[in-house]
């Protein structure tokens, strides 16, 4: 298992480098000039100096190498410095955003808490709903609950977040006025009332995201439970007189959770991507919104770094899912 993990980790390095190259080349080879918005009255030499100031003066491969160094060495050093008060990264050039000339990672660090709060809560809520729903629908297959559950998951699966988000805003924010439609990021939780307000403003985005994730997860959970309920060991467990509760919740559930856990792990990075739309609908200024504004402002270093962070998350959680699968299921042997 350990050798497998190490091998996969080592294999992840060229994969990530290649993805970095693809993203870099896509942005590099695309037409479009960052100086296009500079007025025509600015002389050509000044424009050239501005290009150099943006770091565009050097050949492509050197810039790629510099970006890799900045991403994998200088930025982690900065994190280390911030944590332990050291100054290893002093004087080293960080990845600079073209929008505000500040390091990209400072902007990202400002945005991450909002995304983690909203998206993370949604994910936890979704898991808490999906697992029991999946278990019960599979146990009572073709019952009214199962039919209704299948229908609701199909709807949740099909309704895109930009519609469900708009719909809940119309119903709960505009008509009923129960919840605010816009997420207030400056809100500080320092009292019970402030906490209640935080819960209320998180409610709608979390529900929209959770509906989507729940529908996918509970379908998986149901299918996995159905597979296991027909196995021989279930009959054996019943035959030796175990309580129905123990059969379903201990024997079947534990085996059914194996694929579901990996699906949960695989879904984590896509949540960051999927949250782009939800963040836009509810005006949560998280990472997704940062990406959209960077794209609209043609801020290539920011776009490049954010896209690559998403790619790193995908590769890491794929690896995690594989390793978890191997740990949880003793029938799987990688070595």
């Amino acid at each position, binding site marked *: 298992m350990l050798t497998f993990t190490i091998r996969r980790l080592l294999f992840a390095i060229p994969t990530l480098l290649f993805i970095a190259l693809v993203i870099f080349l*896509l942005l590099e080879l695309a037409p*479009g000039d960052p100086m296009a918005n500079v007025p025509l009255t600015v002389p050509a030499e000044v424009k050239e100096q501005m290009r150099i100031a943006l770091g565009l003066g050097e050949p492509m491969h050197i810039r790629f190498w510099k970006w890799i160094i900045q991403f994998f060495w200088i930025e982690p050093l900065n994190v280390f410095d911030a944590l332990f008060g050291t100054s290893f990264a002093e004087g080293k050039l960080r990845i600079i955003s073209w929008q505000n000339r500040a390091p990209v990672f400072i902007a990202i660090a400002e945005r991450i808490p909002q995304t983690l709060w909203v998206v993370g809560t949604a994910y936890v809520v979704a898991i808490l709903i999906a697992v029991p729903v999946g278990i019960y629908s599979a146990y009572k297959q073709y019952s009214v609950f199962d039919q209704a559950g299948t229908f609701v998951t199909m709807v949740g699966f099909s309704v895109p977040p930009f519609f469900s988000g708009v719909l809940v805003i119309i119903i709960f924010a*505009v008509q009923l006025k129960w919840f605010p439609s816009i997420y207030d990021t400056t809100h500080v939780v320092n009292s019970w009332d402030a906490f209640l307000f935080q819960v209320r403003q998180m409610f709608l985005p979390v529900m929209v995201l959770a509906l989507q994730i729940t529908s996918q997860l509970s379908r998986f959970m149901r299918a996995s439970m159905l597979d296991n309920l027909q196995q021989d060991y279930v009959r054996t467990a019943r035959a030796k007189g175990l309580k129905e509760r123990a059969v379903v919740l201990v024997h079947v559930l534990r085996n059914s959770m194996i694929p579901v856990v990996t699906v949960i792990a695989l879904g984590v990075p896509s949540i960051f991507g999927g949250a782009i*739309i939800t963040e836009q609908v509810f005006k949560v200024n998280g990472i997704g919104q940062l990406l959209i504004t960077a*794209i609209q402002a043609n801020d290539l270093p920011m776009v490049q770094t954010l896209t690559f962070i998403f*790619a790193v998350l*995908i590769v890491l959680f794929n690896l995690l899912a594989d390793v978890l699968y191997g740990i949880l299921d003793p029938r799987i042997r990688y070595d």
Partner: protein
Amino acid sequence: MTDTPVPTNAGASPPSQAPRSQWWDVWDQFRSHKGAMVGAAFFLAIVALVVFGPLIWDVDPTKTNIRERNAPMSLSAPLGTDQLGRDIFARMIEGGRISLAVGLTAMGLSLLLGTLIGVLAGYFRRLDGVLMRLTDLFLALPLLPLLLVMVLLFREPLTAAFGIETGIFILIVSAIGVTSWMQTARIVRGDVLALKEREFVLAARATGTTPAKIITRHVLPNVMSPIMVSATLGIATAIITESALSFLGLGFPPDFPTWGRLLNDGVPYLQQYPGRAFWPGLAISLVVLSINYVGDGLRDALDPRIRGR
């Protein structure tokens, strides 16, 4: 199907009618799936509406009429008019044409790519490693951010080359197609790997059939079922992706209504005229829902283990 024993009296008396093709069995199974039938009927109705709608409802979707702006639902404008007095029903039909066209074309492209790569990887062992690593790589790419970046970067040159509508259409269709072929490729490769070892392929090879002929005559017809299932789901994903791009303001320009674009345009008026965002969103959701049901039914119908039970 190949294991079915040949009836012993087949040679004795000539069959009075042509044998029942397996597609009739598939159709019978599909018909028994209520959700799939309703979904298929609804989807066909929507397609008919957007194709033939302009013939019956011949209001120009781009004609502005500022005196009639923000009109409520009425007989002259079934869904009312927008802030420039344009007829929302006509715009919905026009938007549906573009959205469905994007969905179908992007699905076709992604299917073509997926099948090509899947068949090549499954059939030719030398290509397998390279093509599957490529597939893994694409699966590890963050797709929505990349789509946004691609649209941002290639919008201007393509609109300059092909005109606004065609340019954006090409851009969005190819962007969606290039980022959604991986699942199809994986499924097709798996099936081709299994098919390659079957006796009828061996027999074909023994009689000197070229690989190209084997693939088109023996392999492709047998991987049709997974391809058809991914096709239905592909339309749904493509429609959602296009709407998401339009919703984020990176899809079609405002003059070309698509359902996502109309939804995006309706959001600022959510307080006063919620219907404006509601109808396009409902259209997207219902179309995707019906397609997903069709896909579900198709999967059951094409699975020989379920069929006939």
